C-alpha cells in the first residue's frame, strides 16, 4: 500500500503543494502586481491540466486545493472544487492537441486559471454569501490568469514531474 502511494501521482504533488503554499502565504502575499495576489497553486493545477489532460488537472486541482484549504481559513473543499475546475478547463487543450507546444499550454493554463478564479465567487454565492463579487474582480481574474500563463513554462514541466507524465504516455494517448 505504501509502495502504491509512493508510486501514485499524489506523492510528489503533496510536498510541492506544501512548499508552494508556504511561498503563497509569504512571498506572493507581498508580491502583488496591480494589487492582486497571484495564485500559484491554481497556476500549478491549471498547468497540470494543460500538461496532462482534464483528469490529471482535476486530480492536481483537488489535491492542491485541499492543501490550500487546510492551510488557510477557507472552507475545506471550496478551493479544491475551484482548482479542480481550473484543471479541467485547462485540460481542454488536449482536445486540440495531446502534446501542446509551450505557448498553447500557456494559453490553456491562462484560461484554466481564469476559470478557477472566476469559480471562487460563484461558489461563494452558492454557499450563501450575498456579495461575493468585488468591484475589482475583473482585474483580479485578468491578473491571476496572466500570471498563471507567465508561470506555465516553469509549471508545466513541474506538473509533468509531479504527476509522472512521460513522453511515451503522451504519444500513447495520441494514438
Amino acid at each position, binding site marked *: 500500500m505504501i509502495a502504491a502511494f509512493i508510486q501514485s501521482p499524489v506523492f510528489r504533488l503533496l510536498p510541492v503543494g*506544501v*512548499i508552494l*503554499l*508556504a*511561498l*503563497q*502565504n*509569504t*512571498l*506572493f*502575499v*507581498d*508580491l502583488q502586481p496591480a*494589487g*492582486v*495576489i497571484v*495564485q500559484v497553486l491554481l497556476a500549478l493545477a491549471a498547468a497540470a491540466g494543460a500538461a496532462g*489532460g*482534464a*483528469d490529471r488537472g*482535476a*486530480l492536481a*486541482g*483537488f489535491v492542491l*486545493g*485541499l492543501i490550500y*484549504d*487546510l*492551510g*488557510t*481559513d*477557507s*472552507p*475545506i*473543499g*471550496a*478551493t*479544491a*472544487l475551484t482548482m*479542480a*475546475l481550473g484543471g*479541467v478547463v485547462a485540460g*481542454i487543450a*488536449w*482536445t486540440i492537441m*495531446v502534446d501542446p507546444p509551450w505557448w498553447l499550454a500557456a494559453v490553456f493554463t491562462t484560461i484554466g486559471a481564469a476559470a478557477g*478564479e472566476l469559480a*471562487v*465567487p460563484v461558489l*461563494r454565492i452558492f*454557499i450563501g*454569501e450575498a*456579495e*461575493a463579487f*468585488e*468591484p*475589482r474582480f475583473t482585474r*483580479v481574474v485578468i491578473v*491571476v490568469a496572466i500570471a498563471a500563463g507567465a508561470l506555465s513554462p516553469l509549471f508545466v514541466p513541474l506538473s509533468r514531474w509531479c504527476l509522472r507524465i512521460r513522453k511515451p504516455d503522451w504519444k500513447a*494517448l495520441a494514438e
Partner: protein
Amino acid sequence: MGIYSPVRRRLIIALLLSSVLLLTLDLRGNQIFDTMRNGFQQAMDPLESAAEVVSRPIRNAWRGITQYDDLADENEDLRRQLEAQRADQITYRAAVIEFQALLELNNLPSLSDYDAVTARVIGETPNNLDQIIEIDKGEDDGIDVGMAVVSEGGLVGKVTRVFDDRSFIMLVRDQRFAVRAKVPGAAPEEPEGPEPPPTSANAIPHDDLTTTTTLPPSTTTTVPGATSSTAPGGVPGSSTSTTSTTSTTTTTTIAATTTTTIPPTEKETGTVVGQGRGEPILLRFVRENIDAGRFEVGDAVMTEGGEGSLSPPDIPIGTISRIRRQSGSAGPMIEVQLGADLERLSFVRIVLYQSLEEAAGDGG
C-alpha cells in the same frame, strides 16, 4: 473531450463531487476538520518561517521597485501631517482625559473599561476575495468569536475563527463585514440666506432654543403721596407693589419664558460595511436629518454598541471622506476613511467584550 475514456470522466466527476461533499461537511461544522486544519497549520509554521526568510530579499527588491516613489511621497506627506497635528494632539489629549473623567463621574462605560489582549499579526489570507489576517493569540487568552479588534487608529475587524493559540480576524474591508455605527455630533446646519439682525443683546437667531429672560425691574417709581401703581405690561402675579403713606415703590419683574426643544447632540446610526481591498468602506442605511444637521466630510464614525452588537460602543472607525447624496427616499451613501492602516498591521488588540445577548447566551 472525445479522447477521454469513461473511467477518466468518472474520475473527474468523483473528484468534483468529493469536493462538494467535503465543503458541505465543513460548512455544517466539523470538529475533525478543525483539528486537521489546526494540526496542518502548526506543521506549516516552520516551513512558512523558512519561506519568509528565503523570500525576504525578493520581497524587499520588489518593494524597492514598485513602492519606492510612493513611499517617498508618503513620507513627505506624513512629515507635513505630523507637524500639523502636533498641536492638535495636545488639545485632543486633554479633551480625551476630560471625557474619560466625565464618563467615570457619571458611571458610564468607556473603551478603557474592557480588558484587551495584544496580539501579533502572523499571517494574511493569500486569496483575493477574503480580507482575513491571522494572529498569534487564541482561546487560551480569552479570545472568542465575534470580539472586536482594534489598533491605534481604531477598529480593525472582528474575530471569526478561534483555535487554542491562534485566531483569524476578518478585516473591516471584507465584503462580509458589517457593524452598527454612528456619526455622533453632527452640527446643525445654518439657515440659508441673509441672517436676520439680532434685535437685542439677548436675541438668539435660532428659534429652536429655550429662552428664559429675566428683565431687571422695569419701573421703580417713588411718588410722594399714597399712590399705588403697576407698570404697564406687568404680569399679574409677577409684580409686587409696596405702598406706604409716604412713598410708593413699585417693583415689576417680567419673566418671559418660551419653552421649546433644544436638539440634543445628534446621533445618526447606520451600518458600516466593507467592499473589498482597495475599495472604500461604506456607511449604509443611514438617514440624514436636515433639521438636526447634515453629515460633513471629516465627521467621525464610531461603533454604536448596544445590546445586540458584538462590538462595544465608541470605538473609532474613521472619518467621512465622501458623501453621495441620492435623490428620493434613499439615504446618502457615505464613504468612510478608516482610521486604522490595514496595510501595515503588526500588532492588534482584541477587546474582550461580549455583548449582553452573547453573555446571556453563554450563561444560559
